[in-house]
């Protein structure tokens, strides 16, 4: 890659980083905000590669985009800030069930 193209890539990644950071702070719905946060980590990992630090890139990808996103999701689920979404089956409303989660377990037949 030519040096100018690398420069353009770096600048666009940095802009994307700032946009992702601001967006994950002000978004209202939490699951999309979480996904944007994960993409922030992913962009950061690519930037570490462009800055020639592969150790940091591996760690950032594993920790930021992997484990950190999952743990955030678990925490939000535990605080019940992410509500369940029921998939209606045959036009019937989903039952008010306190232990079940997203209606995935009745999808055996669609598997």
């Amino acid at each position, binding site marked *: 890659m030519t040096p100018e193209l690398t420069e353009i890539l770096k600048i666009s990644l940095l802009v994307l980083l700032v946009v992702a950071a601001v967006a994950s702070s002000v978004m209202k719905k939490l699951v999309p905000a979480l996904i944007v946060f994960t993409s922030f980590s992913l962009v950061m990992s690519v930037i570490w590669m462009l800055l020639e630090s592969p*150790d940091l890139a*591996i760690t950032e990808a594993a*920790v930021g985009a992997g*484990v950190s996103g999952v743990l955030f999701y678990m925490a939000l*689920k535990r605080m019940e800030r992410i509500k369940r979404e029921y998939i209606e089956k045959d036009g019937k409303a989903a039952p008010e069930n306190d232990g079940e989660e997203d209606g995935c377990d009745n999808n055996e037949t669609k*598997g």
Partner: protein
Amino acid sequence: MKLKDDFKKWLSYDLDLDEEPTMPEPIEFDDEAPEITIWHRLRQQGAHRKLYYVVAVICSAVLAFTLILTVSGMPRYGEDAEFMDTVTYEYLAHGMEYTGAVNIVSGIILEYRAFDTLGESFVLFCAVTCVLVLLRLDDEADSSAPSYHDLTHDIVLRRTARAIIPLIFVFGIYVLLNGHLSPGGGFSGGAVLGAGIILLSSAYGEEASGKFVTERTFRIVTTSALLFYCVGKSYTFYTGANGIETFIGNGRPGDILSAGLILPLNVAVGLVVACTMYGIYRMFKERRF
């Protein structure tokens, strides 16, 4: 005089100066409303919170501007700055020879500055202890927490996991063991391994991951890894400071069994990191192992 009366009343604890600590009222979240950002929510709240948000944004902007101003005057990335790089030149010139590691970053974090890495491992240990303290349910009867939906029947997750998990484990072990020869090391490899165990646990359920990581395993692995790091590095620090020769040699750079204690320490750190990640995940998911 009113002041004298007030003072006498205050002295005998009869004056109520209205200092009662209150819990804050919970904010009502209206998740069904169609707006995208929180600016719309702000409009509903009082002037107090609006002022708070405005001041917060101004402070962050000032801090960001100050930091940009600060680094704009410093040398650019990759530029040669003799004044600032004496330590770096030394590491690059003699790192491989003194530590035996081809990956100089591993040499720095586990030989030159091993005390900091010891501290960082203990930071992980402290974090998992705090999470255990907060979340672990010791009382079997107190399980009012919502139990998580069991995704083990989700066919997409199972099929994908079956293909990917072996690759993740092999890659993680490779990164861990080759820390002194190629990029990676204890923290990276441990994080990858931890992510792999988390994926195994969420795809195949507790029975599958419980086969090789239980609470007992967690305790034994964490404790022995940290103790090994403490004792091993104390030996090195003690002999180094007192000028005694150590018997741990550096080997030939490039061999898998070289670089002194770096390989065992990478393994120890990696195990601590993997167990920490998995432990925190289990605590969040089910509040017990």
